[in-house]
């Protein structure tokens, strides 16, 4: 030893790194990715591949050539955005539409604001919503899963879309449900028309439990979303079961589980404190149900999360943890 290193305390660090936290999220998404590929086949693999590759390449190229900063690809956050964007799209989405979504997600929603940690809205959701309003045809042509080795693609509406359509045509909810043949235990495992990430609720929940066990996220946001959706839909459904869908249906459809477990819990765009998180979750759950019941879009999770993302700075200001020895 020649020279002594002198720096302020603390002199040791925990093993936590941003990359490790992001890797945990990727690991948590693996079951859902595997399920979606199993159910939707090679087309889903293409969507996933294009999405992840474009997100990572765009982040690398923009930071290097436009921002002239060290590349941040290594922190794996672009990989997560890519996976989440893909899981939010139908497997039939053309590759160039996926690419446009990635440009919006990484280029506009993330790097314009300063990159990881600086963005106000969840990048994957911004990309998804942009595609939803720009390319409604591609985004709403849902097909029932045909499986990795399946032959026939059965096209049809998502359960929420079917309900919306049926209600407009004057049918009641129970009629639509029996016509669609929706079975909740089946929904929990798989096999409903929808975007890839909506396919297998159990795979998503497994990822969520993993993240909670690894203490990457706290469960409060997710649980308060589930509780609010269940409670709100229970109240409306009790009042008029012919017009309003029941709690189990609302919990299991429309990407609610994907949104609640993986999008609403994004560190950057969610409140820091426990109570801030609970209010955030209640807001998302309530707005989701309002959009589903009264809005013109069949499905409201994306919009609800983006709206509540905007309120996060206020929630961080209002809900602070109690300081030691102070009132």
């Amino acid at each position: 030893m020649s020279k002594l290193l002198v720096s302020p305390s603390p002199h040791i660090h925990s093993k936590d790194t941003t990359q490790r936290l992001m890797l945990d999220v990727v690991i948590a998404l693996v079951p859902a990715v595997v399920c979606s590929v199993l159910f939707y086949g090679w087309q889903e693999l293409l969507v996933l591949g294009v999405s992840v590759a474009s997100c990572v390449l765009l982040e690398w190229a923009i930071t290097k050539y436009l921002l002239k900063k060290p590349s941040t690809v290594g922190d794996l956050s672009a990989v997560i955005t890519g996976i989440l964007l893909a899981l939010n799209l139908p497997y039939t989405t053309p590759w160039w539409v996926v690419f446009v979504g990635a440009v919006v997600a990484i280029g506009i929603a993330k790097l314009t604001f300063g990159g990881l940690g600086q963005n106000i809205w969840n990048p994957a959701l911004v990309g998804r919503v942009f595609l939803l309003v720009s390319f409604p045809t591609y985004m709403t042509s849902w097909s029932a899963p045909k499986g990795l080795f399946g032959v026939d693609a059965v096209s049809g509406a998502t359960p929420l879309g079917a309900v919306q359509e049926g209600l407009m045509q004057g049918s009641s909810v129970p009629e639509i449900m029996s016509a669609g043949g929706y079975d909740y235990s089946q929904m929990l495992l798989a096999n409903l028309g929808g975007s890839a990430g909506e396919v297998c609720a159990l795979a998503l929940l497994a990822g969520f439990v993993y993240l909670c066990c690894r203490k990457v996220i706290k469960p409060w946001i997710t649980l308060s979303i589930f509780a609010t959706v269940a409670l709100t839909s229970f109240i409306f459904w009790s009042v008029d079961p012919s017009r309003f869908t029941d709690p189990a249906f609302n919990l299991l459809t429309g990407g609610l589980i994907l949104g609640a477990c993986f999008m609403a819990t994004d560190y950057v765009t969610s409140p820091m404190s426990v109570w801030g998180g609970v209010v955030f979750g209640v807001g998302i759950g309530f707005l989701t149900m309002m959009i589903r019941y009264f809005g013109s879009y069949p499905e409201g999770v994306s919009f609800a999360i983006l709206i509540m993302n905007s309120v996060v700075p206020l929630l961080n200001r209002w809900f602070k943890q109690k300081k030691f020895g102070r009132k």
Partner: protein
Amino acid sequence: MSKKHTFSMGGVHPHDSKISRECAIEQLPLAPTVYLSVAQHIGAPSVPCVAVGDKVKVGQVVAQPGGFVGAYIHSSVSGTVKSIGPRQDLAGRMSTHIEIAVEGDEWLEGIDTSDTLITAIPEDAKAIVEKVKLGGVVGLGGATFPTHVKLSPPPGSKCERIIINGCECEPYLTSDFRTLLEKGEQVVVGAAILQKAMGGVPCTIAIEENKPEAIAHIKEVIARLGYPEMEVMSMKMRYPQGGEKQLIDAVMHRQVGSGALPISVGAVVQNVATALAVYDAVQKNKPIVDNSVTVTGECFPRQANLLVRVGTPLRYIIDYLGGVPADAVKIISGGPMMGRAVANLDAATVKGTGALLFLTEAQTRRAPETNCIRCGKCADACPMGLEPFLLNKLAQAKDTDALEENAAQDCIECGCCLYSCPAHIPLLDHIRVGKGFVLSAIRARAAAAKAAAEAAKQ
């Protein structure tokens, strides 16, 4: 809620790395020369009362308190005063040191150097406090606050409980653990003396659960010596349990307010080593001339807990144990969370030196800072309930008002925020600066208020 005793918010769980826990305390041979700093406690520096050329004995006063918050400093060796002048301390700052060339080991008359345990405690509280003051006893848990001041609560405040801090929650440190095991009787008598000094209040000896031998031993000693109202409390392992405010919260479930002293909630906290020093000062007339120092680190070949005379040059200690390992890049005086990096191996130990820790590049090098991902781990880790991510930004913006509003001055600098930040943001570095802004603003306000009051009087 967990039934285990611990503080109510924040904290982290670093690996405890107590690799020197089996090393019994051994006496370090006398160094040829010692250097006694006159500024080795919180408060006014002491004033030297010897001259160059004077012969001194072990335990003889060489510097007197420079104010009420001050402490006596005693010669830790016998020999001749060689010089009195400025010298770098271990952080590289200059302060006055008294250099003494060691000749033999002759102790001052009246100091009992035998091992005989004296359990009979003086009745007079005032006499106890005076003896503690004469013994130069300061808090040996890190802050080195003069103990007699802590034992003299301001009028109107009342001590309800003595807490003996045996948490030793910093990783690597084992000197308090060894002291509890090897000098448990003396520590318990010291605790009983402190009880008496505060008017016979109850006493809790708090020890973290990773030291079960110490917990069992102290329980047995208390039962054997039979002091009333004294208990051992097994604490959950969690850093910074040994922080004064955290420990009071854990033991008494009372939170010391911002800027307030522990006595405001009826608590007086003393470290294990301090309790031993109180025993020595009161029962044996022995002032602080030596203290236990853990010398450790994975890269250090010879782990040790050494009894070191105050003022021994660090280089002498390290050479005795085989020299600085080739792969060590940082030497820390104290623990890895709150200790100070040593800048100068020629510096001498002070009363509060509890450990020398050697860390390798891989163990201590900070990773490059990346963007804050707003994960909130720093806020979860803060034992004072602060928001380090926010204070970090405010400190860089030099926004003193907002820093004060968000309680930057409450920061205890435990390092939990920086330790847990996945983006490796130097949170505490900035917050220390911000805390400095607030503290000077508070001082300036107090000075202005005082001046205004003076002006109004005239």
